[in-house]
């Protein structure tokens, strides 16, 4: 076990998958010699060659569309979209093709494609470099949408996603890219080691136990929720933090069980509030744990505006203070 940044953990995960399976390919703009604009693929082209780590032309529909064809030919493409706001030219391929091919072929054609997307704000970037597109994808049947909140999950979940026979949108919280944490790589990686079991990919995880209020977060907001829980504890409120990990499918069982114990729920995400992931979680909880609820479910989210100019993002984004306000509101309800 070593302490590694999330970027380092993702890089290691990709390396181990490239070693394990010669059918794994990386595709994307600038993933080769540059190592990606965030350096997630740093050094991989040097070690695995430009046939396996492919610098593509500048076209997202092309990246995903050719990945679909490569998957049909038996490969396991891992695509990198350079920034969240640039996935949209590829959305046609994702929604009308990638997500539907298993179904269309009556289960005969698998689509083991991973689309990695750095997402979310908080890094002072310009327009289109801070967006949270998860709800668009989660609304599409046939693709999985996952996001790690820690370096260990970044490593493990990426390997599981690549091992998955189905398409996975793998959202990387770029605001946490440089945060370090312990990472235990799987021993004996390489072809013989086989893929990691993909079972756990859809599971939410309780990352801090508590009794008074449940806070559900994912990706960049897991760390925010943990900080808030620490402060709340000092003020006498015991907050349970759930890292959702998988946005679709949604592990509502873990959330519902927690809410049955705490009776209170706050959901946090950076994406706009309306019609989002928080709404889905709130709906499931009221459906399955209505009589356990002591307070309405609250959402702490980005607003229903375009992502603002970066000088405003600090307050626009859900932070520790807004989360604590919501925790207090449901506690006092």
């Amino acid at each position: 076990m070593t302490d590694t940044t999330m970027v380092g953990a993702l890089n290691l995960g990709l390396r181990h998958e490239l070693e394990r399976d010669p059918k794994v390919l990386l595709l994307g703009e600038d993933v080769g010699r540059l190592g990606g604009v965030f350096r997630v693929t740093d050094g991989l082209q040097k070690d695995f060659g430009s046939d396996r780590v492919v610098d593509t032309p500048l076209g997202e529909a092309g990246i995903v569309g050719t990945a679909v064809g490569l998957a049909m030919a038996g490969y396991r493409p891992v695509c990198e979209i350079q920034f969240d706001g640039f996935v949209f030219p590829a959305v046609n391929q994702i929604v009308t093709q990638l997500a539907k091919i298993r179904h269309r072929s009556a289960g005969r054609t698998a689509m083991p494609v991973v689309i990695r997307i750095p997402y979310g704000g908080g890094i002072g970037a310009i327009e289109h470099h801070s967006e949270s597109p998860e709800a668009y994808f989660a609304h599409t049947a046939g693709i999985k949408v996952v996001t790690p909140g820690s370096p260990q999950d970044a490593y493990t979940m990426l390997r599981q996603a690549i091992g998955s026979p189905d398409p996975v949108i793998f959202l990387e919280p770029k605001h946490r890219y440089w945060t370090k944490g312990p990472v235990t790589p799987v021993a004996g990686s390489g072809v013989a080691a086989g893929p990691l079991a993909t079972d756990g990919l859809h599971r939410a995880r309780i990352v801090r136990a508590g009794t008074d209020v449940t806070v559900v977060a994912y990706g960049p907001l897991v760390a925010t929720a943990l900080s808030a829980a620490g402060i709340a504890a000092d003020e006498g409120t015991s907050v349970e933090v759930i890292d959702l990990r998988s946005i679709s499918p949604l592990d509502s069982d873990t959330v519902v069980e927690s809410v049955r114990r705490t009776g209170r729920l706050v959901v946090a995400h950076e994406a706009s509030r309306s019609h989002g992931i928080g709404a889905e979680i709130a709906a499931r909880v009221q459906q399955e744990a209505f009589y356990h609820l002591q307070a309405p479910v609250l959402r702490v989210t980005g607003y229903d505006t375009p992502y603002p100019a970066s000088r405003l993002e600090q307050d626009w984004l859900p932070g520790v203070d807004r989360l604590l306000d919501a925790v207090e509101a449901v506690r006092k309800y």
Partner: protein
Amino acid sequence: MPERSAHSGHHGVMPVIADAPGPDHPTAPPEPVDPARLYRDMAITRRIDTEAIALQRQGELGLWPSLLGQEAAQVGAAHALQPQDMVFPTYREHGVAWVRGIDPVELLGLFRGTTLGGWDPQQHRMNTYTLVIGAQLLHAVGYAMGIVRDGDVGTGEPGRDRAVLAFLGDGSISEGETNEAFVWAAAQDLPVVFLCQNNQWAISAPFSVQSRVPVARRADGFGFPGIRVDGNDVHAVLDATREALERARAGGGPTLVEALTYRRNPHTTSDDDGRYRSGAENDRWAARDPLALALDGMETGDGRAALLAEVEQECEQVAARLRAGCRALPEPDPAAPFDHTFAEITPELERQRAEHLAFVASLEVTP
């Protein structure tokens, strides 16, 4: 395809790729542009760029995409415009913005994080910067459709006929939307000139990743003229763009102008070009510096010394303005995202705005 000169002057140009038909309506011969004016605008453009990079290093800007080496392509193209023409830029057209009369301080807002745009596109007849590669080209085509519907093409009335000048990079030619734009412009003979600054790199991807043939030759497959010019020769770019815009205004349809040049700085201030290209390549292009080339073509002697002194003084003034103006750019209002999401605020946004402003106010009272 016969090779012909893309410009009427004597300046060195690249081989022309495709022939261009003459305009349907004769237009008045263009006013000559004073070479000193071109040099001045290139020098100021460079100074804006240098100063913005310094501001980024000082932490005043989050990011800056430098145009070092592309001054001639931009200033040359911009001087081919008539006031009534419309420009659709990418994110690197600082020289075009300067010639279009946009306050360089306004360019900084996007990169400082105080705005998502800055200037009034109608006032300057230049749209705000576009960060999604290729997206603006379809807007340019749609705008050109509007011009045609308004009857402002091919009237022969100077000051009425209009055209659109849309900028793109060499990486952009791989995007689907770019190709859709070419198809529409061709099929409808639209008054749009696509100006590709082939600076030979799309971040770390060399041109060979995008295309086997020069950008200009792509136009042939879509059915309109493609012209390749020396992008470091301001006169060559001016002449080719002017000819293309005149044809467009006269109803002669689209043109793709490829200005072959080189991006001498990293892609942006966040990029490390040492990872993907050699200093020697950069040196070769530094030896073809557009400002030096422009000076070479000018008179020597006292006149030049006076011009250089005058331009230097102007550059100093612009730089000082930029430094002071950058720091004085107003901080955005926390309500701005809510107020400008729609023309009228919705009840839901009204609630969210009130919630947000109360939250921001609560932060201000804490010590």
